């Protein structure tokens, strides 16, 4: 039941956005952070054949069924994370980058990230002065159950603080910043380990950038209330 196909016509020289009808799963194996359960991953493979030419393109990704939520707790002001409805005690590690000459091989990432999992961490915070980490980094975080807090490229030291204040309005080209942010989100958004996008380190990005990021990253209305109720607050089963 997990193999579906659809007939689609794509006009010449055009880009068509297509949403596949949702695939139903009963009791899927869920993805859990390190120390809370297994990191079940499904191999999702998508291919498109063009009539008369055979296979035209394919794509695949190891996907984890999980729901990660986080809210600010009013009494403590701290951020509470929940995974699949269960509150998580975050044992987080600071992550800047693996090598100052960016020799970022898969083997290096696997070793670094497994090391953090073996140290019993369940989250890595990618600092805003480092990198938007790479797909290989996230793949091993998916595999070893390390959730990721990923900051964009704003830091308190460089942007809007200091004497004299430096870069009070962040980078010179805000459109370029948002173009890079949007492309980075598209590159990383399917990873089970991605838990939180954060505007920057110790600093709120310039108002226009922060507003755009919040708008772009808000939950799609369709998923806002992903429970159907029959009025009595009971969930339809």
């Amino acid at each position, binding site marked *: 039941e997990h193999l579906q196909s659809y007939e689609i016509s794509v006009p010449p020289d055009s880009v068509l956005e297509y949403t596949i009808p949702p695939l139903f799963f009963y009791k899927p194996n869920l993805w859990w952070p390190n120390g809370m359960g297994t990191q079940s991953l499904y191999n999702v493979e998508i291919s498109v054949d063009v009539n008369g030419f055979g296979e035209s393109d394919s794509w695949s990704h190891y996907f984890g069924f999980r729901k990660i939520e986080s809210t600010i707790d009013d009494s403590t002001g701290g951020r509470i994370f929940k995974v699949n409805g269960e509150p998580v005690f975050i044992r987080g590690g600071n992550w800047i980058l693996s090598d100052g000459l960016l020799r970022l091989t898969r083997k290096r990432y696997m070793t670094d990230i497994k090391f953090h999992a073996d140290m019993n961490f369940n989250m890595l915070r990618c600092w805003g002065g480092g990198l938007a980490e790479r797909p290989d980094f996230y793949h091993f975080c998916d595999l070893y159950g390390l959730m990721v807090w990923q900051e964009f*490229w704003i830091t308190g030291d*460089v942007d809007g603080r200091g004497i004299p204040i430096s*870069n009070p309005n962040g980078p010179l080209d805000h459109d370029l910043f948002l173009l890079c942010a949007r492309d980075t989100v598209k590159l990383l958004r399917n990873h089970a380990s991605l838990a939180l996008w954060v505007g920057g380190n110790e600093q709120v990005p310039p108002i226009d950038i922060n507003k755009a990021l919040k708008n772009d990253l808000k939950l799609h209305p369709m998923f806002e209330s992903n429970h159907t109720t029959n009025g009595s607050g009971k969930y339809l089963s």
Partner: protein
Amino acid sequence: AAVGKRVLDTGWLAARSTEVSLTGEKLTTTDPPAADPDPTAPWMHAAVPGTVLGTLLKNKLIPDPFYGLNNESIIDIAKSGREHYTFWFFTTFHCAPAGHQHVSLNFRGINYSAEVYLNGHKEVLPKGMFRRHTLDITDVLHPDGKNLLAVLVHPPDHPGAIPPQGGQGGDHEIGKDVATQYVEGWDWICPIRDRNTGIWDEVSISVTGPVKITDPYLVSTFYDDFKRSYLHCTLQLENTSSWLSDCTLKIQVSAEIEGNICLV
């Protein structure tokens, strides 16, 4: 050519731009560098993906900056000027697509901007360290399949300078660009002399038919206490041909159970 992605991470050469007088057009047509450059030539074997310093270290032209005070003996871009760390990267690849196939050249990360030359044709890769670049190269591939690729990579626009007292982020100039900021030095790391200039992430070529899949987005929703779940997927289908394409889109979800038993 087989449909799919092929990573270009071998056989790269590099040279300092100030030591190469040829243009990108010449390098990728009549005057390509020798595949195995002699030590006197400006060309050297390069580490791609990687940075300029990574390639210089690979060729032992600088000491390892992370040992002792070696970093002090590597000239900082603030003193040398941006052109000192503006580098050519060169490689060749074989690709002979069939009539209906399309070929893209993909850069997953360039720091900070670049000019690409393929078989004498030029394309500019705009600024920004954290953005992907995809070029449709179908029409500029050589009929015999042997292709010459040269990339001239420029450092960030504002590499900044490191004050004598150091400090977090040097003089903060790097913050004017959309690039990693630690490279001007921080309390935990010395300044990176080339500010991580280079083809710092994966380079690949993708061969597709007339229709290609772009940026699928997968989301799972849950009901009844996680007993019921739906997998949602939105993607873009790009028809690069000049005729209507009737397609069959397939999605398959499989899970390795234990060992090598697969549940489809």
